């Protein structure tokens, strides 16, 4: 079996440098979606099609604003299909931020008449932003930057985010080189990384897992499901985003987020 090692050494390292947020995009790759057309019928069609209720038209102070919530968008691209589509794929990573609200991107609409459309995000005031991350002393953050142990919890997703997280260990990404490692026990973890919609049957398990983690600790929600429920939203079986149940320190949109974005999001919460 020594030949495995010899082959590997001969083939050489495959670890890649961290690309910039805009670099490394395949032409067809889905990313975030920006407003392409203010046409009301296009917007209406997009809102109707959107399986995750991520698009809305809000009226604030008399002005109409199109909102696309990267915390909900599952990057299905239905809103960007066809020549007269309201949105277009701009080949950039979905937004990340310290609150779910900060993932909503707003586009002023010119000459848009009529009432609000789509879901009312204002009603959606479940953002439970943790201040634990902000409160952490610089000394702790500094140590976390050099050693960050992650406990992953799938709160009920489709498993796509999990596989992407798993890919962080692929030699191309080699997340270990950043001092990040996945651990088996919540007792050893600094970050609780939540993916997937918060299902009813896992709510208590999430709370217990967080309780099992030693302070100081952080919670990061990755992927549309973990932020808002994504296509699964709220139902008899689920509560929507993880922040309905526990306070969250960082959010990263995407369905699923790509591995580089995940690495960047982990760094973001430590800044």
């Amino acid at each position, binding site marked *: 079996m020594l030949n495995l090692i010899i082959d590997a050494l001969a083939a050489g390292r495959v670890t890649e440098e961290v690309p910039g947020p805009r670099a490394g995009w395949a032409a067809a790759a889905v990313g975030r979606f920006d407003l392409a057309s203010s046409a009301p019928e296009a917007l209406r069609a997009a809102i109707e099609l959107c399986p995750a209720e991520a698009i809305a038209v809000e009226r604030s102070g008399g002005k109409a604003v199109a909102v696309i919530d990267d915390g909900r968008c599952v990057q299905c691209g239905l809103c960007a299909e066809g020549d007269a589509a309201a949105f277009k794929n701009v080949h950039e990573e979905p937004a990340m931020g310290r609150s779910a609200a900060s993932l909503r991107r707003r586009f002023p609409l010119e000459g848009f008449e009529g009432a609000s459309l789509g879901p009312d995000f204002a009603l959606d005031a479940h953002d439970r932003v943790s201040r634990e991350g902000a409160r952490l002393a610089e000394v702790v953050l500094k140590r976390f930057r050099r050693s960050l142990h992650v406990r992953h919890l799938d709160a009920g997703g489709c498993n796509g985010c999990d596989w992407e997280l798993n890919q962080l260990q692929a030699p191309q990404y080699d997340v270990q080189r950043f001092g990040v490692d996945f*651990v088996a026990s919540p007792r050893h973890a600094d970050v609780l990384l939540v993916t997937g919609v918060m299902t009813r049957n896992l709510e208590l398990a999430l709370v217990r897992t967080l309780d099992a983690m030693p302070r100081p600790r952080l919670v990061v929600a990755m992927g549309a499901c973990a932020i808002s429920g994504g296509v699964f939203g709220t139902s008899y079986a689920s509560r929507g985003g993880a922040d309905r149940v526990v306070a969250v320190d960082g959010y990263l949109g995407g369905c699923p987020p790509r591995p580089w974005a995940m690495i960047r999001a982990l760094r973001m919460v430590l800044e």
Partner: protein
Amino acid sequence: MSLAVRLALTLSQAALLAAVAPLVNGFIKVLKARFQRRVGPPLTQGYRDLAKLLVKENLHAAPTSALFRLAPAVSLTSAVLASATFPCVAFGGWAASGDVLTALYVLALGRFFTALAGLDAASAFGGLGSSRDVSIAALAEPVAVVAVLVLAAGVGGPPDGAVLAGVHGTVFTSWRLLAAIAFFLVVLAECARVPVDNPATHLELTMVHEAMLLEYSGREFAASTLAAQVKQTVLLALLAAVFLPDGLGASGDPGALALSAAAFAAKLFGLAALVAVVESSVAKLRLFRVPDFLGAAAGLAILAYVAREAL
């Protein structure tokens, strides 16, 4: 040499071995990463992890007793004490006239407490780890003892500081190599390495050593982790200094001391590299194949003894 100097030497060796332990472990990890075609963690990641753990909370599960809090201190102490029982660099002038067997027994004390702590939280995973750990140790220890016995037979007494001085300059022999290989296999088993255990696994059901530490956090976890790393370094150092003492100095003069320190360090990291190579090239054994593995080690140790008698 005065007792004070000898004590100082002994203590500084213990401190040095303890201090270098995370580096040795990091070295293995980096090497493994290279075999996996990636960069791997920084060499100093072990220290960074420990430093981080110092600012974290100790969590105590409801069923745990005082023993749970005591065990990390005992296991780290036992590992550090074991590193003081035999000379790594110079044979002359050792303060503790203890021998290698003592080191093994002192390490066993640490394991006893760690195994108890694994069971203290009433978690089945801890139980899995403890029962596997003591079962494997039960088979590994006799092999270690026989390997040491071979050495003792070769040098005319137990391999302690005074007697080992006699080894210096002796010809490298086949039986010594056989004993060293046997002991190396024991080190793999004792240090929770592939093919006996997988230090990189996240699967609770397959763990041996880490399963016992699943309930620890904060400083206590730091101490338990460091204890395991020190134990690994101590056993590798034993191998480097006692089973393969070539290149080590008998006298205590500074020049010879520096030279043999360099030789020791080279051997220590060479052995660590060997651990990485083995760990990267074989699969983990099925739990009930481990007795075969250690049985083979026992066979090697006996063969070494026979070879010594015959040659």
